[in-house]
């Protein structure tokens, strides 16, 4: 198992992604979430329950990623700015939005007992549904957003004690 961490500059914020992987399978850690993935081949990844074809090229800190017919430009944060990313990798008991979008549905209510990696909410972004998982086992202590609400990347959806 090897592991590395990258920091991405997005409009107005930074996002840290830690990747643990071994022999084509692994886990992304982003915004307090652990997301398992499997590489089916060099350009196909199974993630969040769906298969995604992608291509990526890099020029220094600038990355160009092709995904589902769209091309995105991403910039990695310089090393000197790594310290500023703590808020997005914080508290392992918070469920955060993985992307800007709309909260579709809550799968749990305050007081419910949840297990690690249980689906607790569904989000929609770019017309795609994404599940949010519980980062740890525990009890839902607080729900901070309601279905239909537009949320920012990294916004806390709920807290699990």
């Amino acid at each position, binding site marked *: 198992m*090897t592991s*590395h961490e*990258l920091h*991405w500059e*997005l*409009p107005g914020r930074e*996002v840290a*992604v830690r*990747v643990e*992987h071994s022999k*084509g399978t692994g886990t*992304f850690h*982003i915004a307090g979430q652990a*997301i398992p*993935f499997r*590489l089916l081949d*060099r*350009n196909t*990844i199974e*993630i*969040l329950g769906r298969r*995604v074809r*992608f*291509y*990526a*090229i*890099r*020029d220094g800190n600038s*990355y*160009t*990623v*092709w*995904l*589902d*017919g*769209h*091309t*995105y430009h*991403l910039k990695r944060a310089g090393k000197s700015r790594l310290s500023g990313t703590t808020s997005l990798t914080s508290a392992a008991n918070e469920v955060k939005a*993985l*992307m*800007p*979008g709309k909260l579709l549905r809550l799968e749990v209510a305050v007081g419910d007992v949840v297990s690690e990696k249980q689906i607790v909410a569904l989000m929609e*972004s*770019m017309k*795609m549904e*994404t599940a949010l998982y519980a980062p740890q086992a525990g009890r839902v202590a607080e729900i901070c957003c309601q279905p239909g609400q537009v949320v920012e990347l990294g916004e806390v959806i709920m807290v699990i004690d």
Partner: protein
Amino acid sequence: MIRKVLIANRGEIAIRISYTLREMGIDAAAVFTAADEGALHARLAREAHLVTSYLDIDEMIRTATDAAADAIHPGYGFLSENAALSAACAKAGIVFIGPAPETIRRMGDKLESKRIMQEAGVPVVPIWEGEPPDSEYPVLVKAAGGGGGKGMRLVERPADLAGAMASAAREAAAAFGDSRVFVEKYIRRPRHIEFQILGDSHGNYLHVFERECSIQRRHQKIIEETPSTAVTAELRAEMGAAALAAARAVKYRGAGTVEFVLDPAGRFYFLEMNTRLQVEHPVTEMTTGLDLVREQVRIASGEKLPYRQDGLGQTGHSIECRVYAEIPEENFRPSIGKIEIYEPPLGPGIRLDSGVTRGSLVSYHFDPLLAKLIVWAPTRESAIDRMKRALDDFVLLGVGTNIEFLRRILATHDFALGKLDTAFLDRHPEVFSPPSEVPVEAILAASLPLGEGSREARGARTRQGEASSEGAGSGTAFPDAWTSGPWRNS
């Protein structure tokens, strides 16, 4: 009998011409300049000759002679509409695959071509060589010696005419070495409809139906299709007859295109005649089964056209999208670099005429056209669906492209309805807005380590500027050659 052809061109059209020549059992020789060393068209050729320029007529004739070629195919752009090349070929005993010098010269002069067409009974847009009556405003000031939007001015009021003509004349002199300008009636919300024509040296003329080319940026076509949603069977017969009259008027020999503007009331006017193979010729081929390059070679060999007008027909619908190395969202800024990833779309009804592949360098020396994506389907609706799917599947990374921009145009309601005109993009600013959010999957995919994901692409990227042999840095202004170079609108 033609046994060997020198293809005096580059990029996708040089490759496309070579395919037909090989299918006909004719040898092909390519040419390439130092800037195009390693370019796909030169690499694919079994024989390639280094030239100093794609525009030097004497050198091109010399190269053809050295290569023992008995014919020259000029493609489009560059020397294709240069009467002097056609004349030089005749003098050197080389077959020019195109019309006679006189035809090229007369049709290249916009004033003379209009006069010839008017005499032949073809409707032309009213023009004035001096001041038009006040009731005719708005008017367009245009250059007599060239196209591509250079030397063109829209004038709303008589008081502005003199200034517009003076500045248009200066621009035309710089672009074409010909300062003559004239005034043309401005047609509001026109469609650009053109007819493919064929003429042989035995006095036979055919039209091979229309192409709708109304989706344009900076007076250059980006999406073309046939049949046109604006052309009824009656209008097709009428415009086809006008195209044939135009061909007869100049005893046209070869493949050519008669361009018309069609106003919202259904009136059409002759615009100009292009005396060469057109960029968008594939949509005609897809719907008729003809190979227009093969027809050109046969006609140049002195053969008779083996078709009758009433024996020609169209099946289904075809659309072409021009894939350019440019950023539409940044005022169509050209993009240069090395193509790192190239995954072309596949499947039924898809044709890709491409001048590039993985590893190709895109420099600012030439027109930014990378490839033409063409689809065929039984209906227009299914052709649009197929084109959207093909654009979604087209992966080309390393230079910026207009692929997603084309996809957004095809997704508009007006495109689906066939409500097109040359100002389509002005009325649809929404197609210039890409989605602003980055999905989490893209961030995660980019985070995959070296050795997984796109291994060979990482760290291998040529920086912008290095792709150009002149080593200009990134972010510098691009020379005018990008927009005003030898490549005319076609």
